[in-house]
């Protein structure tokens, strides 16, 4: 009995090992080859970037043949929009490659300052010391921050005061607002997130005052947390909230002080929890970066901006 069981197992074992070794060897070889070829390609693309600096500045002219590589890094809110703009830009200028990397507004600002990126992406206004270091913010669009609750929450609206009371722990039970008798679950954003800064600024709060039960990273994390918890209340970018709500995710956007969250209200300024979405450059941009910036700010981009759930700015 035992013999019949273990005998085939053993032979299978020996085979398994040699197979595994072979597989590892192949994997290593593949890795090495990709790595080597990656190394070979690197200097080329670098050279293109360097060449690119020598291109004559051609502000706004679409006729000049543009080529080279442009690196944009920063806010995870702006990045999806920047990717869409970059795609369109690349189809019009086939010799141009635009790389968009995310990592948060602070990274975008730091990278633009250090020159790691040609342009930074930020979803908040620049601070005074950042402007003093020579950064220029170019506004692409406006985003709003909206308070969201689970779809099962009976609440239909909140006042600013109630939002503050909820987030600072003065109200800890939904029954105090006419809901069910259960504890409120406060979903806060991780420190350094632009949404957090906008939210705190608008309600005049400090992060230490917030009695959070859950801390989340990006918008999707926040939305999924509120969607999975009928007692939760949080805040996310309106673009993300609206598209998710339209997809049937069980969340509801709550009007604050009776102002419905619509992109029109955001555009008119009636909805006040807003933030600018910026492309950041060190000094005034030149060459390819300037051409891309003009393109991104042109009215032809408004459909892309609206498709992302943001509101375009008209200068």
């Amino acid at each position: 009995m035992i013999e019949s069981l273990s005998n085939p197992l053993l032979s299978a074992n020996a085979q398994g090992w040699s197979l595994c070794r072979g597989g590892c060897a192949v994997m290593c070889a593949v890795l090495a080859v990709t790595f080597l070829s990656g190394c070979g390609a690197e200097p080329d693309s670098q050279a293109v970037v360097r060449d690119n600096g020598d291109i004559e500045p051609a502000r706004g002219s679409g006729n000049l043949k543009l080529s080279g590589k442009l690196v944009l890094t920063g806010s995870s809110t702006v990045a999806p929009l920047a990717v869409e703009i970059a795609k369109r830009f690349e189809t019009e200028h086939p010799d141009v490659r635009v790389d968009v990397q995310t990592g948060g507004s602070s990274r975008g600002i730091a990278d633009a300052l250090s020159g790691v990126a040609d342009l930074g992406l930020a979803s908040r206004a620049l601070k005074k010391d950042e402007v003093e270091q020579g950064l220029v913010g170019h506004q692409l669009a406006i985003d709003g921050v909206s308070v969201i609750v689970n779809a099962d929450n009976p609440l239909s609206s909140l006042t600013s005061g109630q939002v503050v009371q909820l987030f600072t722990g003065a109200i800890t039970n939904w029954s105090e607002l006419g809901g069910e008798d259960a504890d409120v679950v406060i979903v806060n954003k991780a420190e350094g997130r632009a949404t957090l800064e906008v939210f705190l600024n608008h309600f005049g709060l400090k992060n230490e005052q917030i009695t959070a039960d859950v801390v989340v990273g990006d918008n999707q994390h926040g939305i999924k947390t509120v969607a999975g918890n009928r007692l939760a209340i949080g805040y996310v970018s309106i673009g993300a909230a609206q598209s998710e709500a339209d997809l049937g995710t069980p969340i509801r956007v709550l009007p604050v002080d009776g102002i419905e969250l619509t992109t029109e209200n955001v555009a008119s300024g009636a909805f006040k929890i807003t933030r600018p979405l910026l492309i950041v450059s060190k000094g005034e941009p030149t060459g390819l970066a300037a051409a891309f910036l003009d393109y991104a700010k042109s009215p032809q981009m408004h459909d892309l901006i609206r498709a992302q759930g943001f509101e375009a700015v008209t200068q």
Partner: protein
Amino acid sequence: MKQSRSNSWLNGDRWLERLLRLAAAMSGCLTLLIVAFVFWQALPALRDPGVARFVSDSVWRPTDETAPQFGMTPMLVGSGLVTLGAVLLATPLALFSVIVAEFYSSRTLAWLLRRVLELLNGVPSVVFGFWGLVVLVPLINAWHPPGQSLLAGILVLTLMLIPTVALATDASLRAVPNELYRSAAALGIGRGAVVWKLAVPLARRGMVAGVLLGAARAVGETMAIVIVCGNIVQMPDSLFDPVRTITANIALEMGYATSGHRAALFATGLLLMLTSSLFVAGAGLLRRRRGRR
């Protein structure tokens, strides 16, 4: 004719060997470079606030302009508890499932069980995290809000550790010499005694090594933990309290961290690397000893 063929074979082999050596050297160097880079980035924090303040400061407020605070004891405790809980849960589950596969099931069932374990091993951690957030967290929330908690982290991590521990245990059980089983069968020893008195004691070192490898993975796990643990920097009073682990802290804050704050995060990264290399070294040591015997 035959001679030349074998020669070309040899040549091919030699090339492959060179390629493999190169690949091995490269991955070794890369690892050392990473360690050196992390150390170099962490150096300012190791000098200025210093390691002592990571423990002695009472709160984690690294961005405070006047007096930054670097207390990370709650996060160390968080990482420790999540890892400990997951290892404690995953070890018996993995052990039993492997023993069942090896000794108590038909060949088909054993095959199926192994494939399932391998499949589980291949699931990306973000998928585990997402599953935890949409399935597990609401369940825990219904029981005891807020749902995102130490418990959720332990349960999700347990699922992720089972295959790691199980596959290592499986390998060490299979390494038990076949003659011993035959001798046991010849002596008329029952299956239970064979499993618990023969196979398990002989494979024990390998099993412990597997558990250590699992612990190394648990300490470093990030994505799933960020999603389900709630990330509040606090000492948990119960299993239902949210916690923030060291890894989650790095993932949440590295994106925007600058200067001193960044260096402090790298210092915690260095600590993680040390911890998990200790586990891996322990596992390696156990395995080598067994090999010698």
